[in-house]
């Protein structure tokens, strides 16, 4: 592991963290507005979270 790799990995994690935060926050807002749709929103949230996670892990593995 070289320093550029580690910095890149850190940037990926920051980016993924921002993304996950936005997804979670928006989902919370949506659930608060429409509690009856909580199930559907949760499923969509998990799917998008997983897609983001796949991207972050992929970048981490390719980078490291």
């Amino acid at each position, binding site marked *: 592991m070289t320093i550029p790799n580690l910095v890149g990995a850190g940037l990926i994690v920051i980016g993924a963290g921002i993304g996950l935060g936005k997804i979670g926050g928006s989902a919370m807002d949506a659930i608060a507005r429409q509690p009856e749709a909580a199930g559907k929103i949760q499923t969509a949230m998990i799917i998008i979270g*997983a897609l983001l996670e796949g991207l972050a892990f992929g970048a981490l593995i390719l980078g490291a």
Partner: protein
Amino acid sequence: MVTIKKSLHLLTAALFALMPLVSNAETPVVSAHDSLHAVTTETSHETHDSHDTHAEVDPSSREFVQAYTEHHLMDDHYYSFFGNAEEHKHYGFGLPVILIDNGLKVFMSTEDFVYKGTVVENGGQHYKYYHGKIYKTDAAGTISYDEHHHPTNEKPFDISITKNVVGLLLATVLLFLGFTALAKTYKSSPNNLPKGIARALEPLVIYVRDEMARPNIGEKKYKKYMPYLLSVFFLIFLLNLLGLTPLGLNVTGNISITVCLALFTFLYVNFSGNADYWKHIFWMPGVPWPMKIVLAPIEVLGMFTKPFSLLIRLFANITAGHSVVMGLIAVAFVMKQTLTTPGAVGVSFLLTLFLTVLELLVAFLQAFIFTMLSSLFIGSAVEEHDHH
């Protein structure tokens, strides 16, 4: 339609049968293992050839923990439940080694073969185990290295029953027992409540059908894909759960296995894709023609990145989970001096317990996500579009 269905089922069956071939022990030796090897060879040159290069390292040191974790994450030819670092002993059982090398060579691996680097003679050929791989050597077991310290000896084609294959077979047997019990209940009377383990499986089957297949693939077509989605869901879920038991299995954390599973999804999506699916890839409707040319390569790339992200997600999640659990267990050994033995064991126990509970969630979530996204991709491939 019937022939397509039949051929898809046949394809899946054939691929599942071929899975152990792809998942043989050809896992690349991880770089940290190599750097550790370099560390140990500097200190003791005698251990140069032995597989157990961390044998000379103090069990409470960081290198030992790292090597142990790496070892756990790799496939192995010997099923070791636990070991004694001071006495260099491993408790477990040997697994059959099957090599294709001028005919079929079959012998049982032993502790000495895998951990002490003993040379095994079979059919006039000598084999030696080195860093998770089997090499052909002379009677003395000489291994020659290139300048990067990689062995240059010839490798036989290895289709051994390794630890991962044992895990797969175990999962297969368990799933078979569980689902035959479930099927029997429905056979005797469709309205019977399943008994025993089948009662726990029924809600999961319905969950896969109602939450994943039906909404994503559509009411008309979902039935054709249920066998695949259920197989993949229960296989991943059970293997993830087996990885949390003290059996020490790490099957879904092996990239060969996840590559194989993602390949099934890839083939399923592309074999069942209708004309609209291919049209959207190569000649995107509804955009001006220069855009179509730009979009085609991107869409073709998208065909491959979808299963790629599936395989990386499952592999990385399980590998990361196992590494962290191993690291927290190691706290008991590494912190022994600072926290005293009971303190270190207590801290390690609490942290590991917490993380294992979290891993239970991850075990389900990864199976869910894999199946969910598979059905989503299949659904987008078979979707009927309204022509605008």
